[in-house]
């Protein structure tokens, strides 16, 4: 397999925005008994998460994060040659949300802008695309926006997903500097497992209809959802990824000849704490090097890696730091990257 490699390109700054509305999972008991909810929370580790209101989209969270980042870093917006929007909860089916954000953020019409739809591994995809395009001589800076309103996707009456997901948006500024050393990306896809995490209707294979929005009891546990709400078979996903993710992490470390001990932080997609703890244990990682934000924000899909960096590592990224990032989920799609950050600028989290 091929690995992607870049040098002289890196993340200059990072910011995050979350909705103001806090959901306390222990009191999220409208559809399930409090005791069951407590057991679920103990396993998945999500105590709180944030829900966006009816009028707030992923793009609004990203916009708030981007405004904060660009003004705090005093960035000349005319230098932004690329805008990427990573999300599976876009504003519209068309046009691409990135184009709307180009105008809203006051970026020039020379900015290349497009959306990337991929899910939990999405931030790493976004980074690799930004790094690749910045290899062009003329390209100066890229703005990578990554947002999700997962709360709007899943049924509150399906216990497999009702307590897990939250909303957030991030902005990353990517640029060139000779201090940035080699970065490495390993990216995988397995479409044979496409049905493990899925929204079956609402696209063009199964268009929206009166039938697709009807709630139905879907299993022997009495879980209820419609065809337009997300489905996840967590056990199947877990079973596959606890084998593949450690393999990928070891493979990349070996390929780029990086000693595990020289990595300052391992930032994983915040799937659920059971899975994250298991992966850390299996990879024999030092807990202090594995930041987690699942307790506060839940699973925010592709946003969870950068959100964890902003939330947990804001005061720890001075100087040169080596990060291993690893995202995995819907697709199935999984990716691992090793990057260096140099005095990475990290803002406070903005509430919208």
């Amino acid at each position: 397999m091929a690995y992607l490699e870049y040098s002289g390109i890196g993340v200059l700054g990072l910011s995050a925005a979350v909705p103001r509305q806090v959901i306390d999972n222990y009191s999220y008991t409208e559809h399930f008994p409090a005791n069951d909810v407590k057991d679920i929370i103990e396993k998945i580790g999500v105590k709180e998460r944030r829900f966006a209101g009816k009028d707030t989209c992923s793009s609004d969270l990203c916009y708030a994060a981007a405004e904060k980042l660009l003004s705090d870093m005093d960035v000349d917006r005319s230098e932004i040659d690329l805008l990427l929007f990573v999300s599976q909860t876009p504003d519209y089916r068309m046009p691409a949300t990135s184009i709307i954000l180009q105008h809203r953020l006051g970026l020039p019409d020379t900015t290349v802008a497009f959306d990337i739809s991929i899910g939990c591994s999405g931030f790493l995809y976004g980074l690799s695309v930004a790094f690749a395009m910045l290899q062009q001589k003329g390209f100066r800076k890229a703005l990578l926006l990554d947002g999700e309103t997962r709360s709007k996707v899943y049924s509150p009456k399906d216990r497999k997903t009702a307590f897990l997901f939250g909303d957030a948006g991030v902005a990353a500024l990517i640029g060139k500097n000779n201090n940035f050393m080699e970065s490495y990306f390993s990216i995988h896809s397995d479409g044979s497992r496409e049905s493990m995490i899925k929204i079956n209707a609402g696209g063009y294979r199964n268009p929206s209809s009166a039938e697709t929005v009807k709630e139905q009891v879907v299993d022997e546990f009495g879980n209820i959802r419609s065809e337009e709400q997300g489905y996840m078979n967590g056990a199947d996903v877990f079973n596959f990824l606890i084998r593949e993710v450690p393999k990928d992490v070891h493979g990349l470390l070996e390929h780029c000849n990086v000693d595990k001990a020289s990595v300052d932080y391992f930032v994983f997609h915040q799937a659920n704490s059971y899975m994250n703890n298991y992966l850390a244990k299996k990879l024999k990682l030092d807990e202090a090097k594995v930041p987690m934000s699942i307790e506060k924000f839940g699973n925010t899909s592709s946003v969870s890696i950068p959100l964890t960096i902003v939330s947990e590592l804001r005061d720890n990224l001075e100087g040169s730091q080596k990060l291993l990032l690893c995202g995995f989920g819907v697709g199935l799609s999984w990716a691992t990257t090793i990057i260096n950050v140099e005095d990475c600028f990290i803002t406070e989290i903005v509430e919208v």
Partner: protein
Amino acid sequence: MDQKQFISSFKEALDIQDRDVLLLDEFRLYPEWDSLAQLTLIAMLDEEYGVSLEMKLFNNLVTVADLFKAVNAVSEQ
């Protein structure tokens, strides 16, 4: 593979404390069985036996004996 040890690990994974687990038990009918219990069982098989069963195979297993046999077969491969 030791059958006694397997049953003991299985009991622990599903957090069954009040009774014995028998080979002919249909484990999906246990009150403890749900998607969270399944996660713990999968983690146990991976950790203690280095085994990851394909879900298509796993979903067809009915009894504890079926599971024991399947884990045996995969770990011998």
